[in-house]
């Protein structure tokens, strides 16, 4: 029957109207140079954020929900309009 595959719904990054933009200088694990926080990874409904230093967001599949930006305590992630202008 149906087999596991990435991108079953296509490149869900296409769904976005706003994109997460990441600033490592405000990111707690980056600043502390050790595993800490990672709330963005914790709360991402899509599981497209890697809890690495610095973090990595898979923009091919990120739906732009904005939860990571909303929950980041350091405001290291902001959401910008897909056309590049800060919304």
């Amino acid at each position, binding site marked *: *029957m*149906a*087999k*596991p*595959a990435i991108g079953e719904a296509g490149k869900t990054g296409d769904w976005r109207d706003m994109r997460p933009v990441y600033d490592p200088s405000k990111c707690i694990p980056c600043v502390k140079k050790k595993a800490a926080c990672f709330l963005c990874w914790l709360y991402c409904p899509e599981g497209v954020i890697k809890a690495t230093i610095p973090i990595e967001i898979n923009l091919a599949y990120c739906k732009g929900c904005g939860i990571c930006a909303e929950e980041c305590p350091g405001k290291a992630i902001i959401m910008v309009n897909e056309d590049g202008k800060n919304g």
Partner: protein
Amino acid sequence: MAEVQIMTGNQAAALGAKLSHVQVVAAYPITPQTSVTEILSQFIESGELKAEYIRVESEHSALTVCVSASTVGARVFTSTSSQGLLYMHEQLHWAAGSRLPIVMCCVNRGVGAPWTIFNDQQDSIAQRDTGWIQIYCRDNQEIIDSIIQGYRIAESVYLPVMICYDGFVMSHTMMPVQIPDAELVSDFLPPYKPHTILSPETPMNINPVLFPWRRANAEGVMCDGYMEMRFKLQKALGESRDVIVATGKAFAGAFGRDHGGLLWQYKTDDAEIILTGMGSVATEATAAADMLREEGVRAGVVGIRVFRPFPKEDARDAFRKTDAIVIFEKGISYGYEGALCSEIKAAFYGTDIRLPIHNYIVGLGGRDVKARELAEAVRLSRDAITSGDAEPAPKWLNCITE
């Protein structure tokens, strides 16, 4: 030497399931099927049958349990009647679409409203579009034998099989039954090999949504759309005809009893008029045919054993040489005519077979059907045919219709 015991149809059914080494039983009691659930519970709780009995809270759940248990690789059995069969209707479609070799006994009982607990075949007739193989038994021997055959058929074509037998008339009537030898049955039924198995070793999502169109998988290979899947179901039903016949012959070879494949014939070689029906009414018709023969009427009987897939070719051959057909049915497709009548007429479409066909609706809600009443109906039909009435509207036998 096989053991012969006198037993009811329900006892025969439970024994058939036991001999078939079913592994999961989920059934809900309903008149007149109830003792099947009780006998199987007895077998399982006493250890005679090593199986899981799930005492489900409804018939819908009964068939659901069978569907998912079959999907993980277990051989399953259930049984029901009437309202219970109606209640599980969506799961009948689901089971056939899932291509699962579930065997179920339908102890034929009429449907409400208003209530009846007595026999007719409306319940199983109403399920004819679901994709199940449907076999109608004429005696208790055929019940036990058909269940065993049912598993072999089901597990080779991956289609569910409904074994139908008349409530009370057979379910509660004792008849002599030769119990098939357990070892012979084990030889006759190889272990169940599922076509798709649900297990962590091969993760997959079974029975998901399909698009209307075909769609490529992750490797770019085009896969079926919904319509292709459904075509495959229809195709399997078509191919099952040969499997049903072959299984019957193999069974006859192993056990010495041949129930006739898709249909059976009684004194039809020289028959000028053929009576037809399904289940015990067809057996009753053989007695009526004998009565008519005594009066010089060359009557014969064609018993339809397998209603789905409909034996179109066999029906054409069986009825080709006769001059009239009288169809006795314990059910009706409301708004039109008896379902069997429609199927038989449709079977002749496109051939040169043109003859009067008379349809009688009989025995609804358990109204008694006597051989002499069938014989009388045939006499009346013959007179009507002589006067030129080739295809009247269905007549309701022994029922006030004014």
